[in-house]
């Protein structure tokens, strides 16, 4: 039976992670039990384009007006760690507005809501595993983890892949953000190379003249062992 590779050391955040305080109250303390990969873990749901909705890939067009902020295009490929593209996989995104406020009842940050920005989108990757959407650049915002704590600008991503073991929820960050060095969530990933995996690149090829700056960001999911497992 096919097996999915174990994540390399230092790539996934350790939890609990003391610098991110709420992990101390919620992350499991008992050792995780190694689960042999069976039919349940090696399968997963598939979705077709019926899960998309009007303006699913343009977050600037989901109301009757234009949101405020810097318009951007974000694009890239969803690949597995063997370099194989993942076509027809569902990518979901959500983010705060340009002022750093989420369109969500529980977000009490004293920054303006934008009546023209809800901040959610869905994209199905194409035959080459590519996704692309238009949005506005999210703002930084404060949170209460520690004194004067600020989240760097980020877009949340959810990706399914081919099996439930590949399931990923992560955040895309922007290059050169001075807050990255201070952020316990970004820095929960031990490996510097792995942290860089979460930062998009500014991309002139994607930038549309007189319209929007472009960012490229590839997402790499776990993938199968390249050599078949020998029976017995």
């Amino acid at each position: 039976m096919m097996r999915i590779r174990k994540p390399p050391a230092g790539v996934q955040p350790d939890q609990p992670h003391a610098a991110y305080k709420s992990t101390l109250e919620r992350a499991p303390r008992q050792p995780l039990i190694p689960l042999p990969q069976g039919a349940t873990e090696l399968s997963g749901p598939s979705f077709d384009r019926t899960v998309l909705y009007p303006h699913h890939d343009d977050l600037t067009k989901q109301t009757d007006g234009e949101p405020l902020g810097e318009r951007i295009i974000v694009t890239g490929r969803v690949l597995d760690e063997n370099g194989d593209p993942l076509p027809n996989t569902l990518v979901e995104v959500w983010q705060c507005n340009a002022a750093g406020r989420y369109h969500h009842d529980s977000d009490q940050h004293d920054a303006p809501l934008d009546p023209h920005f809800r901040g959610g989108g869905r994209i199905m990757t194409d035959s080459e595993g590519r996704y692309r959407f238009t949005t506005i650049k999210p703002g930084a915002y404060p949170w209460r983890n520690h004194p004067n704590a600020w989240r760097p600008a980020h877009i949340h991503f959810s990706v399914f892949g081919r099996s439930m073991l590949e399931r990923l929820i992560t955040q895309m960050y922007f290059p050169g953000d001075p807050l990255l060095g201070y952020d316990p969530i970004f820095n929960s990933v031990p490996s510097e190379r792995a942290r860089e995996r979460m930062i998009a690149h500014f991309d002139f090829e994607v930038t549309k003249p007189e319209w929007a700056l472009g960012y490229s960001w590839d997402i790499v999911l776990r993938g199968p062992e390249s050599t078949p497992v020998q029976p017995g």
Partner: protein
Amino acid sequence: MAELLITPSQTIGPFFKYGLDWPNGENLFPDSTPGRRIRVSGVVTDYQGTPVPDALIEFWQADASGRFGSWRTKASGGFGRVPTDDQGRYAINTRLPGRVAGADGRMQAPHVMVVLFSRGLLKQVMTRFYFEGEAANQDDGVLALCGARVPTLIAKHDAGDLNAYVWNISLQGASETVFFEA
């Protein structure tokens, strides 16, 4: 060696509503799907037993005949997604899953895979639940790995209704649910 480094996980945070809203996510199968109709509900709690009101739970299981939907076959069903409510509760409607093979090829007892995301978790936690009263639980290869903590993985009959089960998720603490890595 793999070609590319995988993208690390980051927390779902508390504000996922506009990105991950999933209409009808509490129903894992279309209404016409054969099998024994069951309802599973429970509460998610933290280290002090306090309900977790901002978790997102996903479910994945085989249908009553032991088949999975998949990206290859385009078969639908078997996937569910629900956020916990303001009291940490969730509920799903599904079918009792059929038996499927484990890694060693042996048939496992009926079970449902669960992944849970929330603020305070940097990556999802993965677990599964089984069903009280299923004879196959005795020989299940995964339950055999869990020792004295097996009861945290068994959904119990709800009082008075054989088709309703209760399964709570304790993220941390004395009765912490078994979580797996694979």
